[in-house]
C-alpha cells in the first residue's frame, strides 16, 4: 500500500505546527485514497517526539536519531531522508515550507530523481502524482501546477490547512543511518540565534510587525508593549531588519517568513508586494499608517490612518481595558 510521508520539523524542542498542518492534510488525502499516512522525524532525540503524534491518524512514525542531527546541516539530513525514502518509497514526501526544508528540497529531488513542488498553498494526490496551487510572482498570482511521478516531493506554506484530531497508535520504527563524518564537508561553526525567548513567528496567533515608520526607541517600545499585551510575535519589514533595528530572522515577506496568524498588525509599513507576499494568509489584517494612500490599506481589514506615535498609546490603553489589565 502506498504511503504519504510527512517530515516533522522540530524547532527549539517543539514540533512545528506547520508540519502538523501538512500531516493533517496528508492523512485526509491518504484516507480518501486508501493509502497510509506516516511521519518521519529526524532529530538528535527523534523518538521523544513520536508520542506527540497520536492524534493525526498515523499508521507509522519513522525516526532517525543521533548527534549528527543536533543542528540543521544539509548533508546528514539529506542522507537520512534518502535512506528513509529508499526504504518507504512514499508516493508523496511532504514538508512544511521552512528555511530548513527549503535548504534540502532541491538536492533531495535531484538525489532521488523525482519532481518537487515547493511552497504550495493547496495540494491533492492524484493517480499520476500531485497537483495543486502555488503562489508565484511574489505571491501576486496563483499558478496551477502538476507533478508526475511515482514519488513526488512537496512543501506546503504555513496556515494552508487546519489540524485534524484522529486518534491512532502508530508503530514507531527507528531507522539507522550512518552519517560518515568525512562526507559532511561543510561545517557548522556557530549558531547566532535571535536574542530573547521570542514566539515563533510562523506559528504565532498574533503578529505585530514594525516598518520604517517606527523610527526610534520610543516606537520600538510601543511595538513591544503591544506585542506583550496581545501575546504576539514581533515581525518587521525589510526596511527595519536591514537597518539592524530588528533581527533578520524577524523579516516577513518574499525573502523573509510567511506568517498566518489570526491577527496581523502592520505598523508603519507601506505594503510593498514583497512584504505582502508573506502576510496574505492572515485572517485579520490591521494597518496603522499616516499615508491614506499606502498600498497596505488595499488589503487591510481595519485601516487606521494616522501617526503611529499618536495612535498606538490610546490603542494599547483601550486594549488593556478590554483585556482587563
Amino acid at each position: 500500500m502506498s504511503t504519504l510521508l510527512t517530515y516533522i520539523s522540530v524547532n527549539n524542542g517543539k514540533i512545528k505546527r506547520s508540519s502538523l498542518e501538512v500531516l493533517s492534510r496528508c492523512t485526509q488525502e491518504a484516507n480518501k485514497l486508501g493509502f497510509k499516512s506516516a511521519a518521519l522525524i529526524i532529530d538528535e532525540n527523534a523518538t521523544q517526539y513520536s508520542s506527540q503524534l497520536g492524534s493525526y491518524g498515523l499508521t507509522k512514525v519513522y525516526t532517525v536519531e543521533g548527534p549528527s542531527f543536533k543542528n540543521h546541516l544539509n548533508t546528514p539530513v539529506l542522507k537520512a531522508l534518502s535512506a528513509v525514502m529508499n526504504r518507504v518509497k512514499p508516493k508523496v514526501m511532504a514538508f512544511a515550507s521552512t528555511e530548513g526544508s527549503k535548504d534540502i528540497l532541491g538536492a533531495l529531488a535531484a538525489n532521488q530523481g523525482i519532481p518537487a513542488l515547493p511552497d504550495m498553498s493547496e495540494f491533492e494526490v492524484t493517480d499520476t502524482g500531485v497537483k495543486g496551487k502555488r503562489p508565484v510572482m511574489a505571491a501576486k498570482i496563483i499558478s496551477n501546477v502538476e507533478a508526475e511521478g511515482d514519488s513526488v516531493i512537496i512543501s506546503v506554506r504555513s496556515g494552508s490547512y487546519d489540524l485534524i484530531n484522529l486518534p491512532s497508535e502508530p508503530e514507531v520504527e527507528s531507522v539507522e543511518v550512518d552519517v560518515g563524518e568525512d562526507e559532511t564537508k561543510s561545517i557548522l561553526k556557530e549558531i547566532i540565534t535571535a536574542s530573547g525567548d521570542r514566539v515563533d513567528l510562523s506559528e504565532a496567533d498574533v503578529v505585530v510587525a514594525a516598518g520604517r515608520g517606527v523610527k526610534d526607541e520610543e516606537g520600538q517600545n510601543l511595538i513591544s508593549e503591544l506585542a506583550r499585551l496581545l501575546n504576539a510575535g514581533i515581525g518587521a519589514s525589510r526596511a527595519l531588519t536591514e537597518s539592524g533595528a530588528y533581527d533578520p530572522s524577524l523579516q516577513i515577506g518574499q525573502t523573509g517568513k510567511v506568517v498566518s496568524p489570526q491577527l496581523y498588525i502592520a505598523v508603519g509599513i507601506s505594503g510593498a508586494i514583497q512584504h505582502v507576499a508573506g502576510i496574505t494568509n492572515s485572517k485579520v489584517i490591521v494597518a496603522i499608517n499616516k499615508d491614506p494612500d499606502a498600498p497596505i490599506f488595499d488589503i487591510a481589514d481595519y485601516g487606521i490612518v494616522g501617526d503611529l506615535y499618536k495612535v498606538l498609546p490610546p490603542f494599547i490603553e483601550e486594549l488593556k481595558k478590554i483585556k482587563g489589565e
Partner: protein
Amino acid sequence: MKFYVCIKQVPDVSAPLQIKDGQLIQDNDRMILNAYDASAVEEALVLTEKHGGEVEVVLIGPEKASETIRKALAMGAHRGTHILITEKQKIDSAVYARILASYFSDKEYDFIACGKQAQDTDSGLTGSMLAEHLKIPYVTNAVGLDYENHHLTVKRQGDIGQEMIELPAPGVVTCSNDMNEPRIPSLKGIMQSKRKEVNTLTPDELGMKMEDVEIKTRILGFEEKPGRKPGKKLEGDPDKIARKTAHLLDEEAGVL
C-alpha cells in the same frame, strides 16, 4: 578565485500582471535580472575584488535574455555564457539545474553562486539540485559571505537565527538579497560591458537533447489570487479611531 554566478532573466514582479485565459501576459519590456542573482553577482564581485580572481555569469534563456547578461557584465562581471533555449520551452528548475550541471561538468571553479530563488517562480530549487548533480557541498540562503584559505564562511539565515557555515571549494552557495545592495552599473561599466566576451551555446552542444528531456512538473495555468478586499478605513482624531478599532477587533472581528 573563480566564481561562477548563475543568473536568470525574470519579469519585474512590481509591474502590473495580467492573466488572460489562464495564461500570464508578460510585458516583454519589463524583464530584469532576478534580484537575488543581482545580490549573488555583487557578492562575487566584492570577494574577487578583495581576494583576486574572476566572475563569470551563466544564463539559460531565450535570445532576448542576453540583455540581462550585459547588465551583469556592466556591474563588473568579467565574462558571460549564454545557453540559448527557445521561448516556448516550458522548463522547470529541475531541467535548468540539469543544463547547468552539464555546463559545469568540465569546468574548474572555486564557487558557483545562485540566487536563493527566482522571483518569478519562487521555487528555490535550482541551486541545491545543481550541487547534488555535481556532488559538491552547498549552503542555501546566504546573508553574508567571507573568503579565506579556499573556503567561504557563509552566514546563512535559518529558521530561528543565523548559522555560520564553512563551505570548502568547490561548492555552491545560494544568495539572499539581504546581504548587500547590488551596485548600479556606471556609464563606464556599461561601455566596457559591450567589449566583454559572451560565449553562446545550445543545450545540444552540451550533450543535452531538449526534445528528449522529461519535464516532470507542469504549469497548467494561472489564476488571480482570491483577493483580500479593503475593509474599514478609519480617519480622524487618532485617539478616537484607535479606541474604536480596539473595540472592532474585539466585538466585530473577534480576534482578541
